[in-house]
């Protein structure tokens, strides 16, 4: 297959504008893989990876030492930190639509930071074309972060909450 540069550019543009996260095309030995960078997920800039660490209230280790320790692979502390991060389970949006944190404008949100959830707990609604999709947590644990605002447009696969699983 001979793919022209403009075709490739068009392809990248289409994938970029879509909710597709990864695109692979294999044709007559020519292989094109387009993978979106994670940072492209519509997460606000202030949610840089370091921030959650700093936000932790009881961090006895002095902050400046952390990067240095991270450079030494055998140090136990950073690996604990990292494990905690990976333990956080994201609840993601199963479709493109509007995120609603509450069943109606004047009611309390389904869940807040600090709330414990079970598999069947409804955590929010995502609405598209007036289909109201009640999203269940699907895991047990504690909501440690709400990543989107009420009324915000969310993409397919976009993380909505972080859950510290039990």
């Amino acid at each position, binding site marked *: 297959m001979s793919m022209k540069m403009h075709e490739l550019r068009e392809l990248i543009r289409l994938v970029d504008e879509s909710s597709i996260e990864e695109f692979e095309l294999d044709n007559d030995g020519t292989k094109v893989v387009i993978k979106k960078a994670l940072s492209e997920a519509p997460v606000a800039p202030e949610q840089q990876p370091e921030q959650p660490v700093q936000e932790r209230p009881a961090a006895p280790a002095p902050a400046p030492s952390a990067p240095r320790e991270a450079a030494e692979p055998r140090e136990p502390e950073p690996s604990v930190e990292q494990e905690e991060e990976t333990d956080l389970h994201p609840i993601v949006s199963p479709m493109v*639509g509007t995120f609603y944190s509450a069943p109606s404008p004047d009611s309390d949100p389904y869940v807040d930071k600090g709330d414990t959830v079970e598999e069947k707990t409804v955590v929010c609604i995502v609405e598209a*074309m*007036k289909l109201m999709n009640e999203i269940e947590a699907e895991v047990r644990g504690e909501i440690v972060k709400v990543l989107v605002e009420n009324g915000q447009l969310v993409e*397919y696969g976009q993380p909505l909450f972080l859950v510290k699983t039990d």
Partner: protein
Amino acid sequence: MGSPIRERMLSLLLEREDAFLSGEEISRRLNCSRTAIWKHIKELRKEGYQIEARPKSGYRLVYRPDRVAPEELKPHLRTRSFGRRMQYQECVPSTQLLAHEWAKEGAEEGSLVITEEQTDGKGRMNRIWHSPPHSGIWMSLVLRPPIPVTEAPQLTLMASVAVTRTLRRETGLDVTIKWPNDLLVGGKKICGILTELRGEQDRVQYVVLGIGINVNVTPDFLPKELESIATSLAIEGGRTFQRPLLIAAILKELEEVYEGYLDHGFEPIRILWEEAAGMLGRIITAQTPEGPRRGEAVGLASSGALLLKTEEGTLPVYSSDIQI
């Protein structure tokens, strides 16, 4: 729910029309005792049927209330599964809530919750849906479509197509769709559809499709604040409509369109929707999460999103309130 014997007794009385049906004959055909017959006659009378009982002649149906109970609906049903299982109560808070409960207990596809009156009818985001007694169609249908969650929003468009086609055919009124699924006559709302889904990331557990139609609602029963935005089939058509016939026709059309959707995908629905839409080619404002967008409504994308032609190009709108 009505008992099967009562339903059959009612259909026997209906068959006989103005003539008397003897107790003996009912007893023979339904294979039940004379005492049981008397019990069911009393129950039917409680529900508003006027049945004359005359010694030696038997029973005769004098008056039939306007009801959407199973015994009134079933004789008209031509569906395979839609409405074949039914929960009916004279008055409920919301058919949508009951259907959710039933679905969680395992209600099969096509299970229907229907009522004469809702005291707490639900619109989107818990808005109130005004549902006065014996004058509308207030029902919720349980679906279990084997489709990915990402495609489920298409169900709202599917339902709006089916109901619009039925109402056009049965009433002759010029019913049009406002994206995605409000049905209008002369710019006023006649039917609302509320679709709620429960599922996992990639799998639909169930969908509750709620349909509210103002059928025989008279102007007196329309609250003042709704006068300018809502209407009814009776107000627009200048006559009343038999709700059981309309419901049976809607369920039949819905079942066919739904099965067609599962077999052939969204494209045929997309074409039917565009035919039934009353807003294509018009300049509209879409209130989206990112602010208002103004442009020409040009059609539906293959996802079901509304295509809006704006100065910055053609945008797909997934989520929005539309102002025409």
